[in-house]
């Protein structure tokens, strides 16, 4: 599992005492192998010991690259470096023993099956004697406000609580530098609040220098001393009291218009086999062409399950989901329930975008990815290619036409996944958290794209926690 690394370096124990770290970057530049442009250029930055700094900027501005450089995990063979970067006067790689990290995905950071064991993991690695470990574990759990005790199985925790635990695991090692890499990007609003509260509580004593990387600056402002923003021109120090521009500001969307009802859910509910409580209680909904419906509600209320029923991907265990004659026209066998349609029939009628775009990618090139749906639904080869080129152009992805979808940034993947669905011109669009974790630019593009589809007469359903999205786009809200 561990990465290869020259021995004798980076082996400093995490238990070595020493105050918070000092970061100095002078003319720092990073260029990834096989890319012509510098991902990061001419960065000058000094972070004093104990400071808490927010590093923000749009997707692709180089935030992740700078973070990787600070963490000392840039592979020298895959990235060329210019200028200078030091943590406590040495290369970040050599200061790794004094680093604590919290990344995005809660599930790929925990190692052990119980909460206390997981916090102890980093202390065992540092070679701390067993009798010193447990007091430190308890101290770290208390510092982040983890309330379940050491024996709690880590699998039973929510995303926010898992992140809180990972933070405790990092703090237990008493790091000089704590790096937080968009730690709330995969959490719902309640989970994000949990994590920010834990960070605020645990870093108040300023025993560590804290660098938070997040494109969504607003929620972190009360927690940090300084904000630096990565812009195309370089790193900009924002003045005290700075606030990010609202992503909804100046956004003008095409309005919708009342169209016919295309799809209805009639007391549709769903219970997984072998479980007692339903994942979705019987729910009614009518999807009208030219209108956008937002499905909201706390985690576990069945929002995503409702999306699967409406999308014709699961059959309701109670009630019915039925298409109007207009939508079902031409389906072989005349079936009205979307679950009974063949996949090729489904894609021209109901388009679905999942929360994780990469789960839906099937080919090795963007161009093929966009042509796939039209080809599968029986469109001729030439027409499918033409549709693909047109969509690439419209989404500003032409430069990546031959790239592998997996190599795109998160924002680009999101746009691509929406585009693949639009390629077959469905009348109903079902989207699960389409704006989740997106920066302001991608957010506006996705919302604009959805409004365009609504104006074309599509019924748009979004499952979302995003209040901004509900506010600017939704014509109706279904709160579960």
């Amino acid at each position: 599992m561990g990465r290869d690394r020259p021995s004798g370096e980076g082996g400093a124990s995490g238990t070595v005492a020493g105050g918070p770290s000092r970061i100095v970057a002078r003319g720092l530049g990073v260029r990834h192998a096989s890319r012509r442009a510098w991902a990061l250029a001419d960065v000058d930055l000094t972070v004093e010991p104990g400071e808490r700094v927010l590093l923000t900027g749009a997707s692709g501005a180089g935030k992740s690259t700078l973070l990787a450089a600070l963490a000392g995990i840039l592979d020298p063979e895959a990235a060329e470096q210019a200028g200078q970067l030091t943590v406590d006067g040495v290369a970040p790689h050599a200061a790794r023993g004094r680093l604590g990290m919290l990344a995005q995905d809660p599930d790929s950071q925990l190692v052990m099956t119980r909460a206390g064991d997981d916090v102890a993991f980093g202390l065992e690695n540092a070679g701390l004697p067993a009798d010193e470990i447990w007091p430190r574990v308890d101290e770290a759990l208390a510092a982040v406000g983890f309330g379940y005790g050491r024996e709690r199985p880590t699998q039973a925790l929510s995303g926010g609580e898992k992140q809180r635990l990972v933070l405790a695991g990092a703090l237990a090692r008493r790091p000089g530098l704590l790096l937080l890499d968009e730690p709330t990007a995969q959490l719902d609003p309640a989970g994000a609040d949990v994590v920010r509260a834990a960070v605020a509580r645990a870093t108040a004593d300023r025993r560590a220098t804290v660098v938070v990387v997040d494109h969504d600056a607003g929620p972190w402002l009360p927690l940090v001393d300084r904000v630096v923003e990565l812009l195309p021109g370089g790193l900009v120090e924002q003045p005290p009291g700075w606030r990010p521009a609202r992503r909804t500001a100046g956004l003008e969307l095409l309005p919708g218009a009342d169209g016919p009802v295309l799809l209805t859910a009639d007391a549709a509910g769903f219970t997984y086999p072998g479980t007692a409580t339903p994942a979705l209680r019987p729910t009614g909904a009518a999807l009208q062409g030219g209108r956008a419906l937002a499905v909201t509600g706390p985690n576990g209320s069945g929002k995503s399950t409702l999306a699967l029923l409406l999308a014709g991907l699961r059959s309701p265990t109670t009630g019915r989901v039925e298409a109007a004659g207009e939508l079902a026209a031409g389906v072989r066998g005349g079936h009205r329930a979307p679950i009974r349609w063949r996949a090729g029939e489904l894609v021209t009628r109901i388009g679905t975008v999942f929360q994780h775009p990469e789960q839906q990618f099937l080919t090795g090139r963007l161009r093929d990815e966009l042509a796939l749906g039209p080809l599968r639904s029986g469109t001729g080869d030439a027409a499918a290619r033409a549709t693909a080129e047109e969509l690439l152009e419209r989404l500003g992805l032409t430069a990546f036409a031959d790239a592998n979808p997996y190599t795109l940034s998160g924002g680009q993947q999101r746009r691509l996944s929406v585009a693949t669905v639009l390629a077959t011109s469905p009348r109903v669009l079902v989207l699960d958290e389409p704006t989740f974790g997106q920066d302001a630019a991608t957010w506006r593009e996705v919302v604009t794209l959805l409004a365009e589809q609504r104006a074309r007469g599509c019924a748009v359903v979004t499952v979302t926690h995003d209040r901004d999205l509900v506010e600017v786009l939704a014509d109706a809200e279904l709160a579960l």
Partner: protein
Amino acid sequence: MVMVLGPVADVPLSRINPVAQLTAIGIVTVVLLTSLDIVTPAIVLAAELCLLPAAGLTDLRDLWRRTWPLLLGAASVGVVNVLLASDADPVTGAGLALRVIGLALPGVLLVASTDPVRLADALTIHWGVSTRFAYGALAALRLAPLLVAEFEAVRLARRTRGVEAGRNPVARVRLLAGVGFTLLVGAVRRGSRLATAMDARGFDSGITRTNARGSLLHPRDTWFVLATGAVCAVAVTVSVLTGYWSPVFIG
């Protein structure tokens, strides 16, 4: 829908150290692999069944859920041998089926009673297994349940793209291969994120790792191994005395 790793709460059998359980499994394996009669596996299996409650496996439905592939496999081994072998009778077939179950059930007992973390602790402390291997494997194991959930999502995602096998078995296999590939890509990416996270917490950094939980061997662990040996000895003795004993001699 959640796959659980290890017992939710400790069961009586959890008090036996995992390396003692593994030693016992070794003894049972050697004895059953070398005996081809019906009496030996029947007695060993009877003893194993007595341990089911100690492993918390009292719910018959839960037991069926954990063991049906094993039972099915054992039954087919028995039937196939009776049908295909010229000199096999139903008793030999039943003996072979019991042997398969008797070999596999200790593994079921171990998984049901042992937290994988305690297993890794015991292996590294008592048997000198490398910590890099043991805890690396442990971390990877945690990702397995995620794979199960993701399988379903990826399968549904194919349908949203117009890709579906329908009734064509060849298309079905190809689709499954595609789903498998998507899952593999996801697993590799998640695995490398996990490796980075473990690295950031000083895993495998060259410092000798300590163990916060420890792993103690008690007299009861010795008794457990001795009792296993005794059960096997009784089984073989009864088998010899009743005239059923028919060992496999290697070489």
